[in-house]
């Protein structure tokens, strides 16, 4: 398995900005540790099978992008990783998904703890109808991460800073989060996810409802977050996948067609279908 191990080298990323030139990233043969491993994952919605024998590893402290045409199962797969599919009526997941070697679908596992470790950012910004502060404090409060008010404030401020939102909202922390712009709302949602100190962050098309400038900001943020978090992102934009990810997985009709270093997927894919998709011939 060859990987781009740029993730280990965090200093370089911080300055590189959102538009990482994938082709020029130095390749290293040192394979990063896989944080999440998925083996033979099958997902059914009622009688309909949505995913067929998907095997993917999500490497530690890097970004993996899931691309593919609509309805290919990439979001479904993402939602398997923190068991968000549990909330969908009639959805059944088979196969092996492990977080740090621990089976995610083990009946003994605490879903609440799992979701605290595997955070999620959704397609449409969905801040709670509460203040900006309360939005970020939500997770720490339910998980009891802060013992007093000062600690809580510290967590909120740190999370907002990490999400590059603090400077914009520091004077109105107690105003409603729903009053922010779309891009700010999405960064608020990222701050909210970061606040519970997850290890993995899942992003389901986080920029699809945003304008190009807000998108660029989020992409920049994703690139910064890679230093400390393992990120899996579903995206419809191939440019975005190329810009932010180190590895890319291409899904088609519920099958994982191909997975590999992002530059390989976009420049020299093995599969004809991948080739067609990334060159814009279908999808």
């Amino acid at each position, binding site marked *: 398995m060859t990987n781009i191990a740029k993730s280990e080298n965090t200093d370089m990323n911080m300055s590189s900005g959102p538009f990482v030139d994938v082709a020029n990233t130095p390749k290293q043969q040192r394979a990063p540790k896989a944080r999440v491993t998925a083996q033979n994952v099958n997902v059914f919605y009622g009688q309909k099978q949505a995913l067929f024998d998907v095997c993917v590893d999500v490497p530690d402290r890097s970004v993996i992008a899931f691309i593919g045409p609509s309805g290919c199962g990439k979001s479904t797969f993402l939602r398997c990783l*923190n068991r*968000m599919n549990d*909330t969908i*009526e009639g959805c059944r997941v088979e196969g092996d998904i492990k977080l740090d070697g621990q089976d995610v679908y083990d009946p003994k596992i605490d879903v*609440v*703890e*799992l*979701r*605290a470790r595997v*955070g*999620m950012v*959704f397609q*449409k910004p*969905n*801040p*709670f*109808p*509460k203040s900006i502060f309360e939005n970020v404090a*939500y*997770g720490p409060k*339910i*998980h009891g991460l802060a013992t007093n008010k000062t600690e809580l404030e510290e967590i909120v401020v740190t999370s907002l800073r990490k999400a590059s939102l603090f400077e914009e909202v520091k004077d109105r922390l107690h105003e409603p989060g*729903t009053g922010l712009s779309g891009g700010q709302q999405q960064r608020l*949602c990222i701050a*909210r*996810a970061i606040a*519970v100190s997850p290890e993995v962050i899942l992003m389901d098309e986080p920029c699809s409802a945003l304008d190009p400038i807000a998108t660029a900001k989020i992409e920049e943020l994703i690139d910064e977050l890679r230093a400390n978090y393992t990120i899996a992102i579903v995206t419809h934009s191939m440019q975005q996948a190329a810009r932010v990810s180190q590895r890319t997985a291409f899904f088609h009709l519920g099958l994982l067609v191909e997975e590999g270093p992002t530059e390989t997927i976009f420049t020299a894919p093995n599969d004809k279908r991948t080739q067609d998709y990334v060159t814009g011939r279908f999808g």
Partner: protein
Amino acid sequence: MNSWMVALLLLAVLSLAYQQGWSLSRRLATPEGRLHSRPAYHGSLVAIWTIAPALVIFGLWALFGTSASRAFILANLPAEIVDTGGAALQSAIQRVRAIASGFGVAGEVQPYEAAAGEALRRFQLIASATVLAAAAAFAGVSLYFARRRIATRLRARNEVERLVRYLLLACSGVAILTTLGIVLSLVFEAARFFTFVSPIDFFFGTVWNPRFSTTGAGSGQYGLLPLLWGTVMVAGIAMFVALPIGLMTAIYLSQYAKPRVRSIVKPMIEILAGIPTIVYGFFALVTVGPALSAFGASIGVDIRATSALTAGIVMGIMIIPFISSLSDDILRQVPRAMIDGSIGLGATQSETIKRVVLPAALPGIVGAFLLAVSRAIGETMIVVLAAGNSPFLRANPGEPISTVTVTIVNQLTGDQDFASPQSLVAFALGLTLFVMTLFLNMAALYIVRRFREQYE
């Protein structure tokens, strides 16, 4: 004049006019000159213009026919009877009408009555024939003019649209005018009541003892407070029962229940809402009251079988489906994305409901609550049967009480004299009730509307 016949005739005229407009406009349509509107619109337009004047004539007759015939009867009655006035004149007019209709009257028919009756019969015959003829003439003339207007460029479609809009406006006007009429009648009758009793004695009096109308207008005390207190207490107990149960039912149905369970449970709860309130009333009287009383005795508390508690609890049960159904709709409006966001952060379902769903839905739930309160305040049958009808200021819910609605029933049943304060007080009570529920409904609508704006 048989009204069925008239209705049939009108329908016949309507279809004739429609057919005229339709076929005439079709004949105009040539390959060169396209019609502006399709023939169906021309037909509708002609039909509307033909029927409208006839309807106006019938409407005028319905409005003024009765007073016209009354004036005619007065003219035909001997002067000494007209001069007596009051109830005697009223019954004389009734008798003449009955004779004219061939229905017959009790007792000897006086010669002057028979003469007046015969005259009235002829008058009615002529009048209805005139009305019919006038209606037919107007319909004919307007049919002629409506037909003449038909042209390729006539914008029949736009005109029909406009007329339909006026028709709909008129229909909604009926509801508004009815409300206005009810309010005005309440206000005027209540004003008459306040000529007997001062508003201060009414609104701040603590004793309710109206006596009977035979004892005279001056006697009796009309203090609203004991009744208002009874209403508030029963409604309060009802909400105390209905709010937690209804809200939790709604939370279960909207957040936890699987679709199959929901499809069974929700209609079953809504059956509760379909039970007539009188049935709740005797359920309270026969079952709940004695059970509560026995329960009270077993723990050493004196609870009467008919009391504020009995009525309140049963009313609460009645209101449960109201609250659960409204709250269920509101809770389901909370966007899925919001719930996902909370669950994605590792919150459990109950944490999500407590911290995200309920706060987001709170204004809507408050609105539902206020609507339910205004229902509880206006509820009558349960309280009539189960509250004990005892209009005294009492703090103990185990004692019988009376409410505003029950008192209205009491004051308006049996022999009535609508000139006495004993009957007129019902209007003052009704007005009080109306104002209370009006404010509650307005508050509820305002809150619900604000809630809607949050997600749109």
